[in-house]
């Protein structure tokens, strides 16, 4: 592919209809995966030998925690592309990540807290894993706040991109916190280098829920990037030509 065609795909006018066609696929895939995953997690997977049924929170907790970190990395990657190539689409994609990323972080923190009370005996502890995940939430909120604080969209793009890139250092800290320091939080049950430390049915349910989180995040990010395009490019010829703008 030549570089000129890459630039063509990076134009909002070209990307808007492509995203629109992709959203239903990812949306329905997310719904189906979430339904299957919840069914496995709550009804099929066996009770845990230590935690009884309290461990079932893992099916949401791990999927959202993974997604919270991964979306931040994606947001930082779009930010780096924007700073390097100065493409509008990259900045809009980065902008579309932050709210859902913050939401995933919030879900991970809330479900973790609800899991901690019956197992550890406390809703919250200032250990390295929990503290760094809380910092992730602040980073997401910082990016969103910075966006809203700056009126000029181009300057906001720049400031947010820089903040996103600075904050990405926090992601490996979250991931390795349970290895580097003594934490109340247990180590990882699933990693690329070791055999999973879970029974098969439990692992299957957890991975399906992780897939559901992926598809949901993609669908929502694409939906939001389309809204951002409408907001930021209104008055331009291509927006005026859109069927949904012309009708009514």
């Amino acid at each position: 592919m030549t570089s000129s065609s890459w630039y063509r795909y990076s134009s909002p006018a070209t990307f808007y209809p492509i995203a629109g066609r992709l959203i239903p696929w990812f949306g329905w895939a997310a719904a189906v995966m979430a339904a299957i995953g919840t069914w496995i997690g709550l009804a099929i997977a066996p009770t845990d030998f230590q935690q009884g049924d309290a461990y079932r929170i893992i099916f949401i907790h791990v999927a959202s925690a993974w997604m919270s970190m991964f979306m931040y990395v994606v947001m930082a990657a779009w930010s780096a592309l924007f700073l390097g190539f100065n493409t509008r689409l990259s900045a809009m994609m980065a902008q579309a990540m932050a709210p859902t990323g913050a939401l995933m972080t919030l879900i991970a923190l809330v479900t973790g807290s609800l899991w901690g009370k019956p197992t550890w005996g406390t809703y919250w502890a200032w250990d390295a894993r929990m503290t760094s995940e809380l910092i992730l939430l602040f980073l997401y909120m910082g990016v969103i706040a910075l966006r809203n604080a700056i009126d000029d969209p181009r300057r906001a793009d720049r400031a947010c991109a820089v903040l996103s890139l600075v904050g990405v250092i926090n992601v490996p800290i979250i991931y390795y916190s349970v290895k580097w320091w003594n934490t109340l939080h247990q180590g990882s049950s699933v990693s690329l280098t070791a055999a999973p430390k879970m029974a098969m049915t439990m692992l299957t349910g957890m991975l399906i829920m992780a897939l559901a989180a992926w598809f949901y995040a993609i669908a929502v990010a694409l939906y939001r990037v389309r809204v951002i395009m409408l907001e930021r490019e209104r008055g331009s010829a291509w927006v005026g030509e859109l069927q949904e703008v012309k009708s009514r």
Partner: protein
Amino acid sequence: MNEFFAMGGYAFFVWGSFGATAFVVVVEMVALRARRRRALDEARLATPDSLTAATQGVL
């Protein structure tokens, strides 16, 4: 069935987690839909066609 909902005594924590997540996801989708509707309304107002239409309506 009751046993299923009791979650071995951890009903509040397990159902609370799943419920809170479902709630947050629904809120995000509803808010996003509303934001799209607003964006479309403003895009209609900003197009040259609608500007002339509005002016003609006034005249």
